[in-house]
């Protein structure tokens, strides 16, 4: 399974890095955006809450102020009557506005004339001088006065609201501000988000932790408070523990207060835990899926590749009939088809090649056969074979061979009286017959010299009856011509000489080589022919010794042979019949 560690890690790495990269990138983006969205969302939410709280607080105060203003002008001339009517008006006001604990009428000279309270006894005509107090000074100048926040018995927050009263003087009401606290402490943002209200000087007016207000805390040290922007908005500030907070604020213009809504910044990060967890899970799932996908992909790829590999190997090994089965319908399928086509093509060309080789081989064999035949025509079989096998033939001395010579008598006269072509035709016919005779008698034709025909027996392969073979051939040649002369136009007669003895045989020459024999035996054989008679086979005593038990011979005595002196000669008469 070597392929796994080639393709699998490659593809797995590629797919995993792609998938993981995409997932990480998308997660980072989504978390980043989610962080910004969370912050924006929170800022918006806090802004809304701050704005809402500011609006509610302002509306609350304005409503009270309006209610105070609505106390009707008491009619009637009688001062007593007017006072009683005003008292009733104030009682109505207390009923309608639970937040008002006390309401008083201060006459134009700044003296309290009427005081109606939920907590204490009502007073009339107390004449207490309030003319120097801010609530009188401002309201008698025609403006609504909002006093600073003070605490009844150090726990209940109160504010004095005064405004000009109908019918003269000033109406001053003590308003319980617990409602502001209710508004503020009801604001919940996230887990630890809270709201608080400060006045223009940064003093805390309302805070869910009442003790902070009672400590008369001043929050001017906090950056978001000291900025004191008149416009609603959100910023990153710090709480009193110096932790970063997302702070939204909204002013209450009437009162010159500011509502702050804050959330610890860490909560925004907590909002990211869920997307982070999601992203991590997604990443893990993505990794698992990509590993599986890589595995499946590689498997899908490697299987056909292995099939291709095997198929290719088999085709390479010569199994051209091998077909790769793919059926994947894709590029691999095409590749397999090309492999199969290649196999088929290879098979076709291989077959053509074999045929050609066979043809050439046959041609060559023919060629060789013809060359062999040619050689055999020129040379003895053994010599020809030795020559074709080794490229040369050794000369060899043969101790006992018999040589046969024939020659036409009166050939010279015949040549002069006969057309040359006719002459050659005649010679050819006769020598062809001689060739057949020598072949049949196991005698080797050596060569023709002019009209002479030389043959030998006992070489190149030695044999015991070389004498007999030559005698038989000579007798048959003579008989052939006698037979031919009976019907032929030209009458030929020949002399045949045979002698036995040692010779050296060999092939000489580079071209047109010829097998030849040398030695005195050849000369003697030639002399035996020339010393013979027409139509007779003349043999030497050597030959006679070899054949005399098979052929009847006629001793001729010593006959002179040119250059050889007197030699015993015999005529062969006929084979002995037993």
């Amino acid at each position, binding site marked *: 399974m070597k392929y796994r560690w080639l393709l699998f890690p490659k593809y797995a790495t590629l797919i995993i890095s792609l998938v993981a990269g995409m997932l990480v990138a998308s997660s980072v983006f989504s978390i980043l955006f989610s962080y910004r969205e969370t912050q924006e969302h929170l800022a918006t939410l806090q802004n809304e809450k701050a704005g809402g709280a500011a609006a509610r607080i302002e509306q609350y105060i304005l409503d009270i102020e309006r209610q105070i203003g609505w106390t009707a002008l008491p009619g009637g001339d009688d001062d007593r009557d007017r006072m009683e009517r005003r008292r*009733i008006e104030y*009682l*109505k006001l*207390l*009923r309608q506005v*639970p937040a008002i*604990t006390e309401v008083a009428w201060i006459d134009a000279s700044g003296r309290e004339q009427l005081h109606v*309270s*939920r*907590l*204490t*006894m*009502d007073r009339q005509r107390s004449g207490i001088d309030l003319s120097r107090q801010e609530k009188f000074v401002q309201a008698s100048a025609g403006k609504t006065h909002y006093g600073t926040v003070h*605490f*009844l*018995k*150090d*726990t*209940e927050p109160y504010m004095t609201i005064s405004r000009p009263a109908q019918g003269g003087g000033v109406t001053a009401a003590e308003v*319980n501000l*617990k409602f502001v606290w209710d508004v503020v402490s009801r604001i919940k943002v996230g887990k630890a988000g809270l709201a608080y209200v400060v006045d223009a000087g940064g003093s805390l007016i309302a805070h869910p*932790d*009442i*003790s902070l207000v*009672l400590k008369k805390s001043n929050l001017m040290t906090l950056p978001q408070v000291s900025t004191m922007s008149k416009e609603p908005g959100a910023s990153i500030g710090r709480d009193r523990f110096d932790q970063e907070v997302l702070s939204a604020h909204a002013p209450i213009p009437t009162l010159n207060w500011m509502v702050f809504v804050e959330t610890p910044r860490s909560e925004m990060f907590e909002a990211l835990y869920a997307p982070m*967890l999601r992203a*991590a*899970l997604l990443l*893990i*799932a993505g990794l*698992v899926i990509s590993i599986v996908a890589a595995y499946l992909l590689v498997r899908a790829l490697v299987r056909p590749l292995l099939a291709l590999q095997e198929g290719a190997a088999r085709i390479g090994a010569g199994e051209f009939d091998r077909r790769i089965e793919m059926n994947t319908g894709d590029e691999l399928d095409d590749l397999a088809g090309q492999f199969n086509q290649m196999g088929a093509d290879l098979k076709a060309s291989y077959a053509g090649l074999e045929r050609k080789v066979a043809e050439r081989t046959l041609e060559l064999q023919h060629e060789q056969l013809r060359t062999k035949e040619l050689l055999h025509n020129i040379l003895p079989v053994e010599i020809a074979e030795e020559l074709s096998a080794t490229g040369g033939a050794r000369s060899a001395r043969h101790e006992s061979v018999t040589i046969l010579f024939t020659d036409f008598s009166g050939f010279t006269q015949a040549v002069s009286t006969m057309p040359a072509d006719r002459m050659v035709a005649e010679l050819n016919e006769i020598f062809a017959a001689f060739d057949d005779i020598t072949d049949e008698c196991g005698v080797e034709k050596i060569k023709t010299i002019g009209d002479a025909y030389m043959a030998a027996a006992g070489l190149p392969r030695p044999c015991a009856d070389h004498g007999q073979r030559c005698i038989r051939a000579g007798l048959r040649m003579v008989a052939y011509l006698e037979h031919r002369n009976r019907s032929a136009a030209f009458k030929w007669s020949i002399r045949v000489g045979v002698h036995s003895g040692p010779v050296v045989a060999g092939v000489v020459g580079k071209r047109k080589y010829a097998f030849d024999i040398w030695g005195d035996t050849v000369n003697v054989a030639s002399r035996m022919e020339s010393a013979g008679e027409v139509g007779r086979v003349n043999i030497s005593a050597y030959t006679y010794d070899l054949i005399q038990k098979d052929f009847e011979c006629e001793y001729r005595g010593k006959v002179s042979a040119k250059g050889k002196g007197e030699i015993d000669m015999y005529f062969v008469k006929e084979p002995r019949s037993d």
Partner: protein
Amino acid sequence: MNRRDTFLAVLALAAVSLAAMAQPVAGVPRVGFLANGSAKASPSVDAFRKGLRDLGYIEGENIALEIRWAAGRFESMPELALELVRWRPDLLVAVVPQGLRAVRAATKSIPVVVIACDPAESVVENIARPSGNITGVTCMASDLTPKRLQLLKEAAPKIHRVAVLYNSFDPNKAEEVRQMHDVARTLGLSLLPVEIRDAGAIESALAGAVRARADALLVLNDPLLYQARRSIVELAAKHRLPATYAFREYVEAGGLMSYGTMQNDLFRRAASHVSKVLKGAKPAELPVEQATLFELVVNLKTARAMGLAISPTFLMRADSVIE
């Protein structure tokens, strides 16, 4: 797939243990309540429970509430307080001065939220900065006594001599009565203090006051008198005394009029103090909260029965009129 499952399981486990770390593993907070009423019917304790529920506390789930009912037997309160302390609560709630006294005797360390009407200053040194382990809510009953007298005079302008019924168990009451003489004078009234120490003495004490020509009745609130409200109301009717009380429960029982806090509102608000303390606030840093909602309740039936014509101006002041 198996491996992934395992991984998810490990992840879930990690998430769970993280969540567990984020919240204290400690058991639910334990709140001991020394109540004055009886387990059968106690609208105030029900209001307190509702207050807790509104704040997200569910009894038996994220808060344990153990209530000991004194059922009016104040003498049993010290023993009940000790029982509650042995239960090892995270916080104790006490009502009425007797209850607070019992709880103070039982513990100096367990935070206490008190729901008490009478001068808070007597039990807590400074109501804005209570030192020690006590905070709570106060109904300002005593502060409103002059107002009550004024309202009584307004409802029944013909009265002259007002019997002031009070329980001398509370040492502050005598001083309160003494101060009331001045208030009465400004209203053109005289006071006839009627001091009792147990409910059984009420009848004869009131009869004595009537003999002393008292023509109206002012009841200074006290748990003992609160419990005896039916007989007080009956005696007032019997002697045709226009009477004023601190809580509407007197009027509902047939009393002429009351001016004061809504008790249920007070108990409900005590729950928010409990919540703050359980969330880690120190009682010494939580100001004692004063009541801000007061109601004037008038029983017109009672008025008619004693031939008293209530003026429309006065009725306009009333928050609640019982026909």
